[in-house]
Every structure is written in structure tokens, then in C-alpha cells.
């Protein structure tokens, strides 16, 4: 198309006509491309708008009302939020969620780092180990919860039987306030180690061996190498794993539901915010109250993710 220059002198009538045709053809193609573009994206954009964006906005509206899901909602401003601040059950669920998150996430990431370092060693059978540790990740959480509830059973459970074999105390795991929460933490760590380890292992494999060789020449110890080479160079993967784990942990629901959902006596020691959302919404049909809880948790999630983004400058090294 550039060749038009050679055929007709710039500024001549023929040139301008040609330019106009080219421009029109181009704009017709652009219009055609835009039509295709809209057609390609329309289903997803409309579907997401209807099933995700609209409900998110509606949820904010719900949280300002008192509504049982049937009658006309009454606007009550921030009353739900004020009530929640005085609701001991909700505050307990918030404390439980935070305790669960701040214990299970570091524990899982720590063990996963250890596992990834072991898997990164030049050993045979790495894919087999990786597979075994990953199986809990793909296991249906409801099924995992059922099995672990049975394992934790104080009388007939396998765990206490094993503890008895080595003469350790056999606690009543599921009926003690602290241990009940700890049980959920253990299940969550068990089911997330494999996923975290796979990401961290990929990060480890990206670290060039020249760093370690140089450090060895300088006579650095293994521990020193770990903290001065491995940790900084692994920090982007660690950061990713921490952000994802934190978001997932704050939303824990399935395990609470299956392990303690039917058990009113133990529920208060283990209830999480998302469990409260379900209970308020679908057991007591208090839609406004449930939505307000969902929003408080979401703001927590947002703040914590933002905090991590801010803190990453201090410890995450990007090459």
C-alpha cells in the first residue's frame, strides 16, 4: 500500500483518491474487527456482569438493610455493622478466622519450604514424592473433613490410638475449644502443603547453581547459604504462596461445616466468618446481616493483601 507513492505524485488528485480508498478500506476493516471483538467478548462480559458484578454491588446494598429474603427489605443504614460489633458470636468468628489464618498459613508455608528444599536435592523418585504430597490438595475438602473427623475421634480414632502406642496423651480433639481449632488448622495444613511446595520447588529450580558454588568457595555453611541465597532468591515465590494462602484461609468454610457444623456445642470455638455468613443467610434468613459479615471479611482480605503488597518491598527480591 505504501507503493501508491510511486504511482501517483503526492498532492495530485489521483493520489488523494487512492488515499481515501485505502483509508476507507482500513476503517472498514477496523469496524469489522471491532464487531468481531465485541462478539468474542460479549458472552463473558455479559455473564460476569450479571452473575458476578451485579451481585457484588447488590450485596453492598443488602448489607444496609434488614431483610428476611421474602418481605420488602427495610433500609437501616449501618445498623447491621453496628450490631455486628456487639455480636459476640461474630466477634468470636472473626478471632477464630484470624487465629486459624495466622497459624495455619505460616505453618503450611514453613513445612512446604522444607519439603521443597528436600525435593530440590538431587534424588531419585522426585515425581513420585511430589505426587504423594500433592494428593491431599486434589482431595474433595468435604471428604477430607469426614475422614479427619473420624481420625480425631477420641475413642475409636486412629490418631489417639497411635498416640497411645507411643504413650503420649490422648486428648479429646474435637471437644476442646483450643484443640478443636487446632484440628482444623492441622487438616488445612495437611491439604495445602503440596500445593505450596510445588510452587516453591519451581522457584528453587530457577535459582542458578553458580550462587551456591561461589558461596562454597568462600566457605559458607549450608545454613548461611540457605538464609543468604535461597531465601532471598525464593522470596518472589514465597510472597505468591503467602498471598494466595492468606486469601484462601480467611475464606475457610467446608472444613468447619463438615467437622463441626452439626455440633452446636463446639461450633462457637470453631466458627469462621464465612460460616457465619452461611448461618445468618441460609439458616436464619437474615440476608442483610449475612451480607454485612461478608463485606467485613472482604475488607479484611483487601487490607491484608494490600499490607503484603506494601511489605514485599522490604523483603521480596526481584532479580
Amino acid at each position, binding site marked *: 500500500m505504501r507503493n501508491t507513492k510511486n504511482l501517483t505524485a503526492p498532492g495530485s488528485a489521483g493520489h488523494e483518491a487512492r488515499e481515501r480508498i485505502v483509508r476507507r478500506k482500513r476503517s472498514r476493516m477496523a469496524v469489522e474487527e471491532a464487531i*468481531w471483538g*465485541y462478539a468474542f467478548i460479549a458472552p463473558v462480559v455479559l455473564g460476569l456482569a450479571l452473575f458476578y458484578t451485579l451481585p457484588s454491588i447488590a450485596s453492598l446494598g443488602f448489607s444496609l438493610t434488614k431483610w428476611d429474603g421474602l418481605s420488602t427489605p427495610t433500609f437501616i443504614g449501618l445498623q447491621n455493622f453496628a450490631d455486628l460489633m456487639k455480636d459476640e458470636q461474630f466477634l468470636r468468628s472473626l478471632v477464630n478466622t484470624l487465629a486459624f489464618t495466622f497459624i495455619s498459613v505460616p505453618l503450611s508455608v514453613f513445612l512446604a519450604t522444607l519439603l521443597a528444599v528436600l525435593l530440590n536435592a538431587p534424588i531419585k523418585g522426585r515425581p513420585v514424592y511430589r505426587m*504423594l504430597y*500433592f*494428593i491431599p490438595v486434589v482431595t474433595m475438602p468435604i471428604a477430607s473433613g469426614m475422614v479427619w473427623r473420624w481420625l480425631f475421634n477420641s475413642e475409636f480414632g486412629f490418631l489417639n490410638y497411635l498416640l497411645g502406642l507411643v504413650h503420649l496423651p490422648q486428648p479429646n480433639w474435637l471437644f476442646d475449644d483450643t484443640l478443636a481449632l487446632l484440628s482444623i488448622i492441622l487438616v488445612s495444613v495437611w491439604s495445602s502443603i503440596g500445593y505450596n511446595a510445588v510452587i516453591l520447588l519451581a522457584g528453587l529450580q530457577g535459582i542458578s547453581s553458580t550462587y551456591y558454588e561461589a558461596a562454597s568457595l568462600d566457605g559458607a555453611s549450608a545454613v548461611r547459604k540457605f538464609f543468604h541465597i535461597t531465601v532471598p532468591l525464593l522470596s518472589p515465590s514465597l510472597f505468591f504462596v503467602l498471598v494466595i494462602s492468606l486469601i484462601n484461609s480467611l475464606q475457610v468454610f467446608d472444613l468447619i461445616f463438615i467437622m463441626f457444623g452439626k455440633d452446636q456445642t463446639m461450633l462457637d470455638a470453631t466458627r469462621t466468618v464465612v460460616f457465619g455468613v452461611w448461618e445468618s443467610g441460609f439458616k436464619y434468613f437474615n440476608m442483610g446481616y449475612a451480607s454485612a459479615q461478608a463485606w467485613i471479611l472482604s475488607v479484611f482480605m483487601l487490607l491484608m493483601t494490600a499490607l503484603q503488597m506494601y511489605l514485599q518491598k522490604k523483603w521480596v527480591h526481584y532479580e
Partner: protein
Amino acid sequence: MQLAAKTRRQPFAIHLLLLLGAIVMLLPFFWMLSTSLKSFGESMQIPPTFLPHEWHWENYIKVWEKIPFGSYFLNSVLVTLGRTAGQLVLCSLAAYGFARLQFPGKNILFFGILTVLMVPSQIVLIPSFFIMLKLGWLDTFYALIVPGIFSAFGTFLLRQFFLSLPKDLDEAAKIDGCSIFGIFWRIYLPLSKAALVSLAIFTILASWNDFFYPLIMTSSDTMRVLPVGIATFQGQHATDYPLLMAGAMMAALPMILLFVLLQRYFIEGIALTGMKA
């Protein structure tokens, strides 16, 4: 000499640690399997038996008789297939649009997709219940499948992948007279098998194991999917552990098998994206 011995001993220590860890990780599966084959009486024995004295394979059949396990299973299969097929088609179309086509408003619409990606599910659940109610979709496959075929995550994942392909492909194909849809269908899709397989695996996994959403959207026993079905089963037969374990085993096994068979794709997929659990 000493050094050689040390490096030879090291792998042994590593294998030992990894093996011990793996035993701990697999213990729940051992206990699930072992319990599922015991008689009810034996499961309540103190001290517990490691392996069943008599192997009650019929427990697995009893589960199908006690609860409509076959119906739960079929529902789970249909929902999973529907969501996955829908996502693959719709997300790849949208992803190509966002990655390669020019049209007014593209950036703002893509920003809209990113905001959906960041909205936590607990916010969406309650209003979606009422949207389903309005549409008359509660307790139907529409509620279980339709919202699940639209995915911000899938669109984002495939768009990133399409952007990594060389743009010259489009130009070359255009010169050969290939239509826009033709470029997408005949050039981009065949080159993106890895990304499509990853998306399919994540969707299958998330959909099969999904609990909260189907819990609130279904009320009749005939519409229940597996996780909801076996949770209800536990509610009704809280102590019949052999049957509960057999049910849990059958519910969890398909994803475990899928993972064992397609391990490479799972691991590559995680490396490609980070999985949305």
C-alpha cells in the same frame, strides 16, 4: 574420603525424611480405605484394628442403596462437564478478543474483568441466590452450571497466554486471507493446548470439589452433587463410619485418579498460573 561418604549418606537421610512425611500425608487415605471395608462393629472396636478382619467390599454397594449416590455422582459429572466445556469455549473467545482485537472500550472492559477476579466469593453468594430465585433457576442444573461457565480467571489466564504468542502469526494469516475467526480457531487454539488443558483441569477440580455454592442452590435430593450429598449422608448417619468412609472414598477418588494420570499437566498448570483453589 569423608566427603564422599557424606554425600552418599545425604540422599539416604533425605529419602528417609521424605518417606516419613509421605506416610503422614497418606495416613488419612489408609484409614479411610481400611475403615470403609470394616463391619460397623469392627469400626467401633477399641483398640482399633489396622486392617479389617473381614473385608466388607459390599459396603461400597450399600452406600448406593442407602443414598442416591448414583444420582449425586451423575449430577457432579454433568455440572463439571458443563462448566468446563462452557469455560473453554467462552473464555478462549473472550481472551482472544482482549488479547488481539482492537475495539473501543476494550481497556475499561478488561479492567472490569480484573475487578471480578478480585471480588471474594462470599460477597457474591447471597445476591446470586436471589438472582437464581428470580430466574426460576433454584434447584436446577441452570443454577449449578450457567454462572460457572463465565470465568474471569479463565479469561485472564488465556489472554496472558495468547499475548505470549508472536503477533506475526495474525499478520501472516491475514495476508493469506484468513478471517478473524479463522485466525482464532485455526492458529491460536491449536497453539494453546497447554493453557487450555490447564484451565480445563482447574475447572474440573474446582467444580467437582465445590461445596458452598451447590449447598445453597439446591434443596431437593435429586439435584444434589457429591459433596453436598455425602455431607447430608454424614448428617443422617453420623456414626456409621464404614459407610461414610466408603462414600467419601468414592467421591474423592475421581479427582485423585485424574491427578495421578495427568500429573504433568497439573504441575505445569500451577507453574503457568498459580491455581485458584
